[in-house]
């Protein structure tokens, strides 16, 4: 599918000619009324088909030396009374806080327009834009005990050239907690058919990764370069490594010290690029596996996923050490977790910390260490009582966020929120009472220790709010 085919097909999604008249008639009524729904007879059959439970194999660890640890569940008796946004547009941030069950510290922050948050970095940002969308001013903040604390915002302007395209943009960045947070506007989407994005280098505050991209859909291709934040100078990272065998690149992952990268392309598969040795090799050829996905566990170990099971519905987990070529299987035939499926269970992979969650068919939950094959069972906890729960690991993989949905708030409707502390061996779970008026839009780690829920006043979506939790 190319972009013209994609847009051409979507152009054909047009409303019925009488919809405008119907809405106008409805708006004349004192309260909104729903249009009668035109359900088709086939719907029930399709729904039934979607609800068929998959016949998965039993998950098993490949390591005979499997060790099992236990997480103890603590469910707080006191439920959180989630405050609703007050409505209207706040001119300045407003923060209130409380301690729930003498254990969970919560901060509720109402925010003016233009605020956003960066996952995992512990900062908020505020972009002041002109009518045409261009950025007039940019500010970073962190959240203190009594309110927002402004951070020094720096700007770096750069110009880079790749494959005949000149990229010019401004990066807004701040340093907080030894990490750099970035924001760049990029180009105007597909209008220009190219884009550039900036991302952080772990433990490095003087330089950033800059990904230059062109095209879209199957024509999409990207190339990574290094951006010096002091000078705006751009240098190539893959030059001379033979990366072209993996081109066109769609994704590049880096070892923390930038000595190696995992390259992947939609059409070419997965490759390991050794910058020190100036080599790029196919992971399939080097390991003898048919690699479905690959990630760095650390600078010297890769986690590889391959599909398995009679219908390819399961996956095997491997570790591979490029220096020695040692390949080790840590889990085999793990059914893949199907969120939102009826009777959902199986394996869910985390992109932080090299860990995964395994939900057994009986609802019991374990945390899997994909590198060692170790499992940590959650004692006294069953997924069976939760509706399509969410698990998200923090960046270092020391804690796992749990959220269940089905509460009164719109959007995510988070009815319970918890954190599995893998180092402390504890899983603390908090029930939430939300009323109407709040639309919960996103959920994640604000930093290594605090969970964030981003929401809006559901009346008009003009007021944003950020709720932070430290368990």
């Amino acid at each position, binding site marked *: *599918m190319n972009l013209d085919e*994609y847009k051409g097909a979507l152009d054909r999604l047009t*409303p019925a000619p009488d919809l405008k008249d119907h809405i106008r008639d409805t708006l004349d009524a004192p309260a909104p009324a729903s249009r*009668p729904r035109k359900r088709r007879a086939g719907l029930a059959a399709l729904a039934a088909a979607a609800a068929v439970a998959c016949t998965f194999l039993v998950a098993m660890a490949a390591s005979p030396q499997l060790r099992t640890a236990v997480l103890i569940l603590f469910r707080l008796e006191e439920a959180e009374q989630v405050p609703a946004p007050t409505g209207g547009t706040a001119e300045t941030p407003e923060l209130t806080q409380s301690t729930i069950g003498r254990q969970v510290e919560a901060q509720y922050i109402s925010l003016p327009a233009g605020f956003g948050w960066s996952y995992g970095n512990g900062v908020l940002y505020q972009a002041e834009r002109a009518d045409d969308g261009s950025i007039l001013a940019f500010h970073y903040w962190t959240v203190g005990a009594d309110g927002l604390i402004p951070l020094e915002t720096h700007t770096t302007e750069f110009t880079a050239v790749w494959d005949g395209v000149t990229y010019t943009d401004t990066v807004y960045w701040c340093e907080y907690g030894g990490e750099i947070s970035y924001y760049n506007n990029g180009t105007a989407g597909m209008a220009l058919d190219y884009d550039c994005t900036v991302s952080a280098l772990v433990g490095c505050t003087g330089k950033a990764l800059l990904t230059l991209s062109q095209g879209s859909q199957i024509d999409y291709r990207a190339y990574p370069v290094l951006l010096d934040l002091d000078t705006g100078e751009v240098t190539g990272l893959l030059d001379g490594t033979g990366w072209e065998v993996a081109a066109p690149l769609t994704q590049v992952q880096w070892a923390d010290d930038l000595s190696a990268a995992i390259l992947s392309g939609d059409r070419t598969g997965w490759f390991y690029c050794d910058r020190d040795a100036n080599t790029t090799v196919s992971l399939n050829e080097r390991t003898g596996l048919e690699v479905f996905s690959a990630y760095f566990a650390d600078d010297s170990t890769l986690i590889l996923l391959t599909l398995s099971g009679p219908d390819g519905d399961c996956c095997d987990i491997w570790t591979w050490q490029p220096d020695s070529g040692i390949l080790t299987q840590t889990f085999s035939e793990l059914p893949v977790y199907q969120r939102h499926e009826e009777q959902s269970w199986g394996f869910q992979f985390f992109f932080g910390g090299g860990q995964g969650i395994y939900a057994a068919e009986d609802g019991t939950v374990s945390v899997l260490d994909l590198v060692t094959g170790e499992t940590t069972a959650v004692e006294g906890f069953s997924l069976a009582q939760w509706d399509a729960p969410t698990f998200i690991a923090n960046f270092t993989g020391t804690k796992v966020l749990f959220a269940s949905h089905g509460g009164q708030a719109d959007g995510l409707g988070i009815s319970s929120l918890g954190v599995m502390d893998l180092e402390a061996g504890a899983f603390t779970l908090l029930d939430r009472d939300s009323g109407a008026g709040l639309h919960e839009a996103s959920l994640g780690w604000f930093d290594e220790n605090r969970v964030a829920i981003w929401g809006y006043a559901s009346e008009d*979506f003009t007021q944003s709010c950020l709720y932070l939790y430290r368990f």
Partner: protein
Amino acid sequence: MEEEQKRRFEQSYDTYGAMVYRLAMVYLGRQADAEDVTQEVFYRLLRKAPAFPDQEREKRWLFQVTANLCKDQLKGFWRKRTAALEAEFPEERPEDRAVLEAVLALPEIYKGPIHLHYYEGYSVAETAEILGLSPSAVKMRLMRGRERLKLELGMEELV
């Protein structure tokens, strides 16, 4: 509805009606549901929305409300375990139907980013602001959504 509201509805619907409906269809895949959401969006625009300083802000607000209402609808679908695709497409061009089926079969989390970025032309940063996501989350969803679109079409072509 007062005359001023009527005038605003006529103007807004003529400008944005198809845009709102299209995003709702991408999320929901059913004409009746997309029409419900379109109706609710314009109800909120007339009865609850603030004054916008310019048309672009109004457009972004409409996208934001549409996406949020659709996600609420999908949440309800899952609760009722009736999340099936019943798309009503124009039948004249089979190739369009294949593309639309692939788009509508995307998991919910990819639909908003893919549509706003690739169809409406918003940048990653603008898409992130509209959907209340971080730019890195949008980038990841664009990449995965793009891969899935190609994968779905590839499988269909094999058939």
